[in-house]
């Protein structure tokens, strides 16, 4: 960080601020400081809130860092050990949140990979109204999790919610406890997330589909391939990089689930739907144990990195 501050302080020949006109023209071209001056504002942000927190997180994780107490002793790997020691006070809560996050991820990811692909295939041909339908399917995604959470807490309300009323109207059970009992709470969280973010993945797939050359489909059709064979032999291989991207980003997004369970199931029943991210922020910012929360963050980030790497590996081998 010190470097950036020096660059910022040495702004004698800085380019003039936005909106101003260059004063000295040619003489400034090629000045050695120029690139760094262009970078300085972003670099200051990046170092303070992008890079520093990574290093600082490691530092926090090896200290008993209570936000309210002045004394923050070094504790080595104790914060990490606690997470894996069934005797420790945090063990049960931590693994319960890991389990919740795993359940949500395992059920939401396949749906969020397959359903948007279906939507994209449906929207890939050109027909009147195509842009309209694409916009409609994408619309929920532009709303934030706070809005989605309040809205679905209401829709899934066992007594007053529209979901149970509609089910009742077609003769199905109308008293499902969607947000207060398992497995319904999981169905709700996964279902809402699919409804909320499918349009986003569909748009990514659509861009990928449009990059597949129509000639490949034509050639395949000439060879007598039916629709399914064309999908298997042309669409899927053509989409492989996009599939990898969608799969990886969706796993990351699902593993980071927070707002849905915070607002819709509110952790219920008990704390069964309380997720890892929720546990981390609660531990660090509500219970003030920033050291342990930082250790949790690091274990969590490492686990996700490993999963992403396995993903990339798996897809690369399949390509050979």
């Amino acid at each position: 960080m010190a470097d950036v501050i020096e660059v910022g302080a040495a702004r004698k020949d800085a380019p003039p601020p936005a909106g101003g006109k260059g004063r000295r023209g040619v003489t400034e071209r090629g000045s050695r400081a120029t690139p760094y001056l262009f970078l300085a504002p972003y670099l200051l942000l990046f170092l303070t809130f992008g890079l520093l927190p990574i290093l600082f997180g490691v530092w926090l994780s090896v200290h008993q860092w209570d936000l309210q107490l002045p004394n923050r002793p070094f504790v080595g790997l104790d914060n990490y050990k606690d997470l894996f020691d069934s005797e420790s006070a945090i063990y049960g809560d931590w693994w319960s949140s890991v389990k919740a996050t795993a359940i949500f991820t395992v059920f939401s990811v396949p749906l969020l990979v397959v359903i948007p692909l279906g939507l994209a295939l449906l929207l890939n041909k050109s027909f009147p109204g195509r842009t309209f339908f694409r916009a409609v399917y994408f619309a929920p995604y532009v709303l934030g999790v706070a809005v989605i959470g309040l809205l679905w807490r209401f829709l899934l309300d066992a007594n007053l919610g529209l979901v149970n009323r509609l089910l009742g109207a077609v003769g199905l059970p109308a008293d499902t406890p969607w947000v207060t009992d398992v497995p319904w709470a999981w169905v709700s969280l996964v279902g809402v997330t699919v409804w909320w973010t499918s349009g986003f993945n569909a748009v990514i797939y659509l861009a990928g589909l449009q990059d597949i050359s129509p000639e490949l489909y034509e050639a395949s059709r000439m060879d007598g391939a039916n629709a399914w064979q064309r999908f298997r032999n042309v669409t899927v291989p053509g989409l492989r990089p996009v599939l990898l991207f969608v799969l990886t980003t969706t796993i990351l997004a699902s593993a980071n689930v927070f707002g849905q369970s915070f607002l819709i199931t509110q952790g219920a029943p008990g704390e069964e739907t309380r997720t890892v991210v929720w546990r981390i922020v609660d531990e660090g910012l509500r219970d003030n144990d920033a050291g342990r929360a930082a250790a949790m963050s690091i274990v969590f980030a490492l686990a996700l990195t490993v999963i992403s790497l396995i993903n990339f590996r798996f897809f690369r081998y399949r390509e050979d």
Partner: protein
Amino acid sequence: MTTLRRSARYGLLVLLALIFLTPLVWMLITSVKTYGEAQKIPPTFVPKPFSTYGYEQILGNTANPVLRWFLNSMLAATLHALLVLATASMAAYALARLRFRGRGVGFALIVGTLFIPPTSLIIPNFVIADRLGWLDTLTVVVVPGAASAFGVFFLRQFFLSIPAELEEAAVLDGANHWQIFSKVLLPLSKPALATLAVLSFLTNWNDFLWPIYVLFSPERLTLPPGLGLLQGAYVTDYPVIMAGAVLASVPVLILFVAAQRHIIQGVSRSGLKG
């Protein structure tokens, strides 16, 4: 056969559209019901009479100053988008057009952070924001998020796609880098800048996890943490809660309709990097 298939396709498209839209329409309908009507079973689809109850509760509310939250959100998201545009475009120019020591390493480092889930940096970022004295201020919801590498990466790719010949005339006229950047490259990049501005605004407007922990005073909140408070205060008084949700949705839905092309292009381009 083809007519049959076409009708089947439209049937499916419309059914899906209903699934995506009904919850949003229901939010709007409920927001103009009275408390009594929202409690009715079976529910009514057309409120009789249309009521401003939910919105009145919200607008005259001193314990939950929703209008204030709305203004805070508007200000925060606008300033955030401007900050991202200014800092990311300058950095992207250096990375795309200038040669300097450390460019490769720096770029790799910046892009590398794209793979770190931002949620895992929340605890250290909270402590850093605290040290800076930023907790419970507007700054804390405007600035830290602008460290995201997405904008720099996105604009760098766009700048690289612009042929450098377009800048040569300016070079021959003796323009310096600042002039090339601001007079030639930025005007050519309007679509990408608009996309980034809209995406940054949306992200900031919708952000929930960070503001619920770094903002405390009721009058300092942005809408998402505010809506959480509203839910806690009104529990099953759904017209009021839905009125709050409508208020938080309208600006982004308008923005989406107006800038649909930019948003969809931005999203699809972010996918193609994969």
